[in-house]
C-alpha cells in the first residue's frame, strides 16, 4: 500500500533569521498597504445589487398546475418531508411546500416527470410567521412576492487571470423559462383481467375520469380512455389485486 505513494512533496518549516523576519514583516505590510490603496473588493451590496445566478439555480419552487398529473413522486422523493399533497376541489392532489422544512435540494424538480415544478432564482423571501412559510398550491402557482431593492446585477467574470465583478444595470429576472419536458408516455392498463374483482376503486380514484364502468347483464365492464389517462399511476397504487399496471404508450 505504502509503496504506491511514491510521489510526494516534502513540506519544510522555515528557520527564520533576523533578515528573513524583517523581510517578512515588510512583505506583509507592503501587501496590506497595496490592498489599502488598490483594493480587490468582492463585496456585493446585496439588497441593492444582486448576484447573477444561472438558470439552474435552486431557488424557491414554482408550480404549473396544468402539467401536474398528481403522481405524488415529488412528495415521495422529498428527503425533508417538505412536500404535502393536498386534495383539490377537482379531485386531484397537488403539492404544497413547507418552506420551514425545504432544503432546496430540488430532488422534486428533478423528479417531476412532466416538468410541473419549476425552478426560480428567488431565494430571499422573508416570512413574518411560521404559518406563512407553508406555501399552498395556490401560492406556488405564482412566484413568491418579495420586496425588491436591486437595480444592478453583479456577474463574476475572470479577466486576465483575476476576478472582475461585472456590474450590469438591470433588474434581474428571477423566474426561469420552463424546460420543455418530454411526456412520460405512460398509460394505465389492465394486465390481469382475471384478477379483477370489479371493485371499481380505480374508477373512483381516477383523477381525470379516464376509467369508465358500465354494468350490463350481470357484467361490469371497465374501460380506460387512453386520451384522458395521464399515466399518473394512482389507480395502479389503489388496485387491491394489483391487476392494473402502467404501460408504455
Amino acid at each position, binding site marked *: 500500500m505504502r509503496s504506491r505513494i511514491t510521489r510526494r512533496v516534502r513540506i519544510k518549516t522555515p528557520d527564520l533569521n533576523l533578515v528573513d523576519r524583517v523581510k517578512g514583516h515588510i512583505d*506583509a*505590510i507592503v501587501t*496590506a*498597504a497595496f*490592498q*489599502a490603496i488598490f*483594493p*480587490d*473588493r*468582492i*463585496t456585493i*451590496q446585496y439588497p441593492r445589487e444582486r448576484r447573477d445566478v444561472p438558470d439552474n439555480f435552486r431557488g424557491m419552487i414554482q408550480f404549473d398546475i396544468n402539467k401536474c398529473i398528481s403522481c405524488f413522486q415529488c412528495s415521495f422523493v422529498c428527503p425533508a418531508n417538505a412536500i404535502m399533497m393536498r386534495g383539490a376541489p377537482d379531485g386531484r392532489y397537488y403539492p404544497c411546500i413547507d418552506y420551514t422544512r425545504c432544503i432546496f435540494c430540488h430532488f422534486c424538480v428533478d423528479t417531476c416527470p412532466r416538468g410541473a415544478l419549476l425552478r426560480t432564482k428567488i431565494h430571499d423571501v422573508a416570512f413574518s410567521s411560521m404559518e406563512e412559510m407553508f406555501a399552498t398550491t395556490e401560492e406556488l402557482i405564482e412566484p413568491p412576492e418579495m420586496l425588491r431593492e436591486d437595480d444592478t446585477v453583479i456577474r463574476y467574470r475572470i479577466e486576465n487571470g483575476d476576478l472582475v465583478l461585472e456590474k450590469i444595470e438591470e433588474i434581474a429576472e428571477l423566474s426561469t423559462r420552463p424546460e420543455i419536458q418530454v411526456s412520460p408516455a405512460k398509460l394505465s392498463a389492465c394486465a390481469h383481467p382475471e384478477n379483477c374483482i370489479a371493485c371499481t376503486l380505480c374508477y373512483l380514484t381516477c383523477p381525470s375520469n379516464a376509467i369508465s364502468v358500465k354494468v350490463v347483464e350481470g357484467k361490469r365492464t371497465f374501460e380506460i380512455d387512453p386520451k384522458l389517462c395521464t399515466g399518473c399511476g394512482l389507480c395502479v397504487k389503489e388496485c387491491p389485486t394489483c391487476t392494473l399496471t402502467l404501460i408504455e404508450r
Partner: protein
Amino acid sequence: MAVSGTSRQKQTDEVMELTLVNTVFQIFSSNMMDIPVIKPLVDVLMTVPIVKYLVALILWKPFFAVILVPGLTGLMLSLLFIIWFERKLTARIQWRMGPLEISRSIGGILQPLADGMRYFFQEIIIHKEAHRPYFVQFPILAFIPVLLPVLFIPAGTVYAIRTPYALPVIVSLISMIPVVIMAIGWASNSRLAFIGTVREAFMYFGYEIPFIIAVLAMAVLYGTSDLYLIVEKQRVWGIALNPISALVFLITMAMATSRLPFEIAEADQEIAFGPFVEYSGILFGLTMTLAYEKMYILGLLFSVLFLGGGSGPPLPFLGDLTPVIWLYIKAVIIMCIMAFLRAVYPRYRIDQALRLGWTYLAGLAVVSVVIAGLISAGGLLP
C-alpha cells in the same frame, strides 16, 4: 428700616459680584485665542453683555486646550473618526466595504455614533459574582489618568499648565491606566477576566520599561522635560534625530494600547476580551474606548516628542489655532498607523511579547539613550 437695610446689602453684594466677575473676565480675556478668521465675530460678541463672558471662557487658552482641542472634544472626535477609519481601512484591505448602512452618502462615518447609541441604551448586566461598586466605577474612573495628561500637552501657545516636570507627570499618569484595567479585571471576578488581568500585568512590565527609557532618551536629547521647550527646540524633528527611540516608542505604544500584534490581554478569540469580558452596555463602550483614548494621548505625546508638536506650515487665517490643528492632525495620523497594523498582524503569544519587550525593545531603548546622549553631548542640537 429693614427694607432699606436689605436693599443696601444687596447693592454691596452686586458690586462685589461685579468686581469678582470682572476680575475673572480680565483673566480670561487677557489670554484669549487669537483666530483671525472669527475675529470680527468675536469682537461683536464681546460687546454683548452676558455672552461675552461665555466667549471669553471658551477662547481662554487653557480652557480651549482642555475642553476643546486637543482636549476632550478633540478626543471624542478622534475616537469617532479612528473607530470608523479602522473599520473602513481594515475592510478595504480585506476586500470588503466596511460600515456603510448608516449615512451611506458620507461613507458610513456616523456608524460609531450609532454604535455608541446602541451601547448607551443596552442593558448593563452586572453579574452576581462581580464586585458591584468597583465594577461600575472603574470604567469611569479610568478617564482620570487618561484625560489628565492633556493638561500638560502644549499646542504652540495653547496649553493648560506649563511645568518643567510635564514629561514625568504625563508618563506616570499614563502608567496608571493599566492599573485601572487590572482593577477592572479584579472587580469582574471572572475566570477569563482573571487571565486577562494577569496578562495585562505581565504586559505592563514588558512594555513600560522600554517605553520610559525611550521617553527618557528624548528628555536627555532635548535636555529638558518641559514639553513647550521640547517643541521649541525641534528645528529637526526628533524622529530624524533619534529614530530608534521613535521605533521603540511606536512599538511600546502598540503594546500599551493593545493594538493587534500585542492585543494579548484582550485576546478576543482566546479569553474573550479578557478584563472586559463581563461588561455590557455603555460600560463596555467605555472600556472599549479606553485603549483608543490612551492611543490618542500617546499619539499627542509622540507628536510632541518626535514630530515637532504643533509646528508646521503657518496657516495665517487661523492664528493661534494653527499649532492646535497641526498637533491634532499628527496625532490622528499616528493613530491611523496603529489602526493599519490591525489588518496585518495576528496576535503574539504573551511569552513572545514579553521576550520582545525585555530583550529587543529594552536593548534598543538603551541604545536610543546612548544616541541621545551622544547627540546631546555633541551639541548637535541648538
